[in-house]
């Protein structure tokens, strides 16, 4: 019964890219099977997408109208009921997984391993602490292993699989104490999702204002890139929170990360360590961002962006 169950993250119609990264981590455990569960109101198209992920044996589809929105207090009891057939239960360490999995683990009386970045064996893992300034190698406690996967540490598995989809009924009593009221997204338009984008253009305090951020958006659109921001820029109200990159925002691993007017606080650097190539543009030649940048350019970010747009 050495099997891992990966909890799919999705929005009801699209499987979130974090799921394929969590599957990549789960596949390294070397267990008998990697299964994925889709908890949704309908979710059949999401289940079909999950079934294509390479390495997945079975996709469980749990359909319930209460699963229309991902509310941890409602999803957790359903996952606990499914967990009896598994030795491991994993989810991506996105806000979805971070919210959900400790609730599952605590009910089942086991600790959780957060932000798995490397699998050494089915019970030994590496995870970052202190905003990634140290790495601990940890051994899970006895019993079910509940973990979240640091998605930036894994590349998505390919889509060459053909798992079977099994509709599964789960009969548990669900609480009525938590109600979903709504979601306000910043509406990124056609821009790629920050966590999946191959290129990300990011702005910091140096951008100066919400209006000035149009320069960042402009360059991003020209490159087909996602848009990120430092905490300082989000705090200042230049850009909505879902663009924040860093220890407490999104941890990303694009092929190209371009930081404009970002000084490079430890907490921000924690979110971009796994980027392929980091480019930094900053007026301050001593900014810590230059310590991690592959290519640094000291100068006015607006002039640089203008020149870049011309050169592209």
């Amino acid at each position, binding site marked *: 019964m050495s099997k891992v169950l990966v909890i799919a993250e999705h929005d009801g119609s699209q499987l979130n890219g974090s799921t394929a990264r969590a599957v990549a981590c789960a596949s390294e455990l070397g267990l008998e099977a990697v299964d994925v569960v889709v908890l949704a109101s309908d979710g059949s198209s999401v289940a079909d997408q999950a079934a294509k992920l390479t390495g997945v044996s079975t996709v469980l589809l749990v359909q319930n109208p209460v699963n229309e929105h991902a*509310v941890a207090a409602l999803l957790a009891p359903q996952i606990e009921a499914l967990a009896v057939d598994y030795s491991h239960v994993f989810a991506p360490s996105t806000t979805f997984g971070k*919210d*959900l999995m400790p609730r599952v683990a*605590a009910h089942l*009386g086991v600790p959780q391993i*957060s932000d798995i970045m490397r699998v050494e064996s089915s019970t030994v893992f590496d995870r970052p602490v202190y905003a990634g300034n140290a790495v*601990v190698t940890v051994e899970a406690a006895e019993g079910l292993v509940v973990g979240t996967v640091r998605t930036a540490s894994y590349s998505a598995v390919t889509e060459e699989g053909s798992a079977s989809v099994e509709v599964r009924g789960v009969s548990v009593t669900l609480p009525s104490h938590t109600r979903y009221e709504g*979601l306000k997204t910043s509406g990124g338009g056609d821009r790629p999702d920050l966590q999946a984008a191959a290129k990300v253009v990011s702005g910091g305090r140096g951008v100066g204002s919400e209006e000035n951020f149009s320069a960042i958006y402009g360059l991003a659109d020209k490159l087909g890139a996602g848009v990120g921001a430092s905490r300082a820029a989000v705090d200042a109200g230049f850009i909505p929170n879902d663009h924040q990159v860093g220890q407490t925002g999104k941890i990303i691993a694009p092929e190209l990360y371009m930081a404009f007017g970002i000084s490079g606080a430890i907490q921000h650097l924690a979110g971009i*360590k796994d980027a392929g190539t980091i480019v930094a543009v900053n007026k301050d030649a001593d900014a810590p961002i230059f310590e991690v940048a592959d290519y640094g*350019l000291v100068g006015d970010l607006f002039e640089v962006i203008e020149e870049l747009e011309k050169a592209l």
Partner: protein
Amino acid sequence: MKILVGVKRVVDYNVRIQVKADGSGVATDGVKMSMNPFDEIAVEEALRIKEAGKAEEVIAVTIGPKVCQEQLRTALAMGADRAIHVETDDDIQPLTGARILKALADKEEPKIVLLGKQAIDDDNNQTAQMLGALSHWPQATFASEVEINGDTALVTREIDAGLETLSVDLPAVISVDLRLNEPRYVKLPDIMKAKRKPIETVTVADLNVEVAGSVKVLKTSAPAKRQAGIKVDSVDELVAVLKEKGLI
């Protein structure tokens, strides 16, 4: 209505931590220690709810060795009414911590437990959710706005997709994110006043809490460093290197 708020003593967020050469952990001798920044935001929010007339008492709680009372004093100086110190020299992991908080919640019967979304040392981001599970209470994590309306709370949460709003029945656990508020500065007279506020000390055994199985740390290492890069002198040079690498 009472509010219970969790406070953890951690290495100050400005400290550049050093991994010990023998892999046994990070150096903490002589390092500045502070209240976890997320917990400061939780304390501040509890005080604001009280100041708005929606709560009568704010109780700060910490778990750890004797020195953790420093952080409880900070919470008291900010304005908490009293404090509970669960004294232990053991390494308390999130599940056991959540069990301890549940035992205290059973005793104190708060309507809200406010916790930081994560501690900046172990970065686990688990305790609030675990407490929610053990208490069978609603949880609203990563809060950037909290509105108390009688027996319910409307909480705006910072999630990857944007800002989500949940309505939860009280009692509930709320974990706080950075943009919820800006914690107040503590003034000297408040520090003096805080010295007279009560701190009750209890042990894990007093609370009849069973210590959970724990995640064992085998070793601590320094992270892989990125190779230092180069400075380019012009946009043309930058474009040339990025083109050469096939990045643009």
